[in-house]
């Protein structure tokens, strides 16, 4: 027989390990999700920043363009003072420039470096604007030479150069910022991929470990299943062997009982036969003694007279009574053993009808003792051996009628119920009852309980029990002295057909 693995600890360890693995896997997933969200956020921020950078660059270029265009328009006006179109151009650009500068300032407000450049730019632009205004005013007054002189001023040239430089630097600052931010984005993307790879590896490990654990558990399970099946098979074999043993033992007892009772009868025939012969002889002797007393009283011997008239009949009477009793006992054993040998034939039995039939056969005794036999309506039917069940119920009901309380009208009820695969019948009476000390004894052969004022050998209940056992049932008694008795009979719902004992 294989040992069963202790399954409870295995289960607990398995549960703990599986939940730990699941927690790990879940954590890995959460980590991946978190990383993905973070990277997305980073991307968004970066995109905004890139856009911002482009806007700044755009604003710088715009300012640059306006400055250069203004310069071009001014120069054009100086070359051909009569061209009012150039002047109009110049004035339009001068009007646009403050907006462009304000936009650039708005965009670069968050960056101290840019702000500084911006400040410088404004100063330079203001100075440039003042000079330009001066030039344009001079030109407007027709002083073209003065205007050209002013234009030739070195400082003016330096101003425009400084403005160009400042604008270039602002653009460079933004580009450098973008490079930095690109690097940051790439780093965060790398971190994201690293996390994904790590989490993937963790998940794979968890999956492999879970798989291995489940496989090993399944293997354990199938092994214990096999062990269980082997145990079951062993158990079945044991039951078969035990049943065979019991059947053999039972057959042995039956055979033994039969042989014993049978062989006991043989000498009994002799004892009884020769007792009868003796009686015949004794009566002849009695006649002789009587004749001697009448005809030759001198020969009459008191001793011979006593022997012939009293001792011999008394002895013969005792031998008779004893042998008759022995005969009844042997007959009882023989009857019991015969019942054990009879083949049972299961059939469906309407127990209520059977009990009523028994009541009919006992009707004379029932009315004699003023007894009422009641059969409850819901008595379940059973598949069993009719003859055996008839004997069992007859015995129980006859007993109930036999042992009534004097002066109390008898009430016998037969009730029953179904209990899953069994049926239970109860024969209840209001008779004299059985002392609880005798409850086990009453089912023994030749044992009786209570006042021995009724005929009987103590066979009925022993027969009942033997029959009930053969029908695969049990019988029990519940009773207190003077309170009636209830015999509970439990039978299988369906008696299986048996091979007849040979």
């Amino acid at each position: 027989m294989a040992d069963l693995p202790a399954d409870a600890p295995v289960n607990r360890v398995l549960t703990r390990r599986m939940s730990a693995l699941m927690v790990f896997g879940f954590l890995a997933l959460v980590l991946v999700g978190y990383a993905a969200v973070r990277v997305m956020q980073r991307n968004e921020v970066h995109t905004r920043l890139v856009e911002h950078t482009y806007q700044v660059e755009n604003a710088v270029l715009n300012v640059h363009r306006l400055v250069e265009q203004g310069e071009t328009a001014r120069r054009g006006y100086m070359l051909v003072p009569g061209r009012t179109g150039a002047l109009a151009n110049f004035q339009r650009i001068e009007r646009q420039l403050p907006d462009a500068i304000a936009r650039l300032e708005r965009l670069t407000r968050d960056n101290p470096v840019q702000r500084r450049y911006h400040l410088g730019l404004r100063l330079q632009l203001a100075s440039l604007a003042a000079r330009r205004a001066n030039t344009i005013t001079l030109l407007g007054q027709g002083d073209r030479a003065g205007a050209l002189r002013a234009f030739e001023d070195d400082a003016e040239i330096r101003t425009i150069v400084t403005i160009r430089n400042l604008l270039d630097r602002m653009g460079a600052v933004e580009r450098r910022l973008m490079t930095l931010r690109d690097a940051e984005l790439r780093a965060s993307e790398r971190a994201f991929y690293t996390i994904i790879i790590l989490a993937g590896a963790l998940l794979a490990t968890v999956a492999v470990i879970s798989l291995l654990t489940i496989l090993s558990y399944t293997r354990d399970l199938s092994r214990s299943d096999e062990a269980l099946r082997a145990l079951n098979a062993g158990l079945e074999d044991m039951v078969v062997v035990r049943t065979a043993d019991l059947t053999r033992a039972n057959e042995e007892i039956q055979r033994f009982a039969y042989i014993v009772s049978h062989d006991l009868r043989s000498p009994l025939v002799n004892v009884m036969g020769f007792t009868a012969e003796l009686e015949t002889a004794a009566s002849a002797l009695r006649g002789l003694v009587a004749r001697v007393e009448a005809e030759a009283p001198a020969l009459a011997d008191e001793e011979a007279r006593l022997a012939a008239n009293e001792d011999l009949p008394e002895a013969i009477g005792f031998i008779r009574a004893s042998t008759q009793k022995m005969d009844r006992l042997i007959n009882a054993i023989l009857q019991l053993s015969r019942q054990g040998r009879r083949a049972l034939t299961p059939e469906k039995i309407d127990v209520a009808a059977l009990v009523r039939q028994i009541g009919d056969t006992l009707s004379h005794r029932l009315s004699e003792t003023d007894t009422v036999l009641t059969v409850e309506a819901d008595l379940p039917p059973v598949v069993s051996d009719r003859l055996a069940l008839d004997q069992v119920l007859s015995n129980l009901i006859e007993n109930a009628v036999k042992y009534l309380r004097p002066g109390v009208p008898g009430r016998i009820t037969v009730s029953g119920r179904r209990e899953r695969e069994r049926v239970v019948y109860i024969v209840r009476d209001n008779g004299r009852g059985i002392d609880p000390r005798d409850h086990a004894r009453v089912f023994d052969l030749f044992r009786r309980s209570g006042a021995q004022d009724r005929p009987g050998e103590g066979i009925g209940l022993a027969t009942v029990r033997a029959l009930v056992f053969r029908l695969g049932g049990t019988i029990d008694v519940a009773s207190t002295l003077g309170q009636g008795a209830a015999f509970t009979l439990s039978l299988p719902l369906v008696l299986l057909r048996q091979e007849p004992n040979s």
Partner: protein
Amino acid sequence: MNAPQSVNIVMIEDDEGHARLIEKNIRRAGIMNPIRHFTDGTSALDYIFHDSTGPQLNGPALVLLDLNLPDMSGTDILARIKTDEGPVKRTPVVVLTTTDDSREIQRCYDLGANVYITKPVNYESFAQAIRQLGLFLSVIQVPDLGDSH
């Protein structure tokens, strides 16, 4: 048994007491034929088949047979008698035994027993049964075994 030639009664019974009681009651029924009593099967078979006064060599007989014998079963003796090729197979066999098992009774009739009687334990019944058997014996015809020779 109304044949002038005396018909021997062969009684095979291991219990001396039973044998005596049977004999007494047969005599009380008025049957006076000689009774040969055997307590075991071997000597009984020897008498039946080989003795010069036995049925095989000497003519009509009637066998009273008990089934429970110390050396062999009564049914074996019955089978020997009834499967014999000679005249013995016509010998009436009355099985007189304590067994009232229906299978045993069936088997004896199958083997060719002529009558099967269960010995009643009660002596009055026993005595009456034997006496009735005696009356029966007084009227039945036993085949003359010599006819077949």
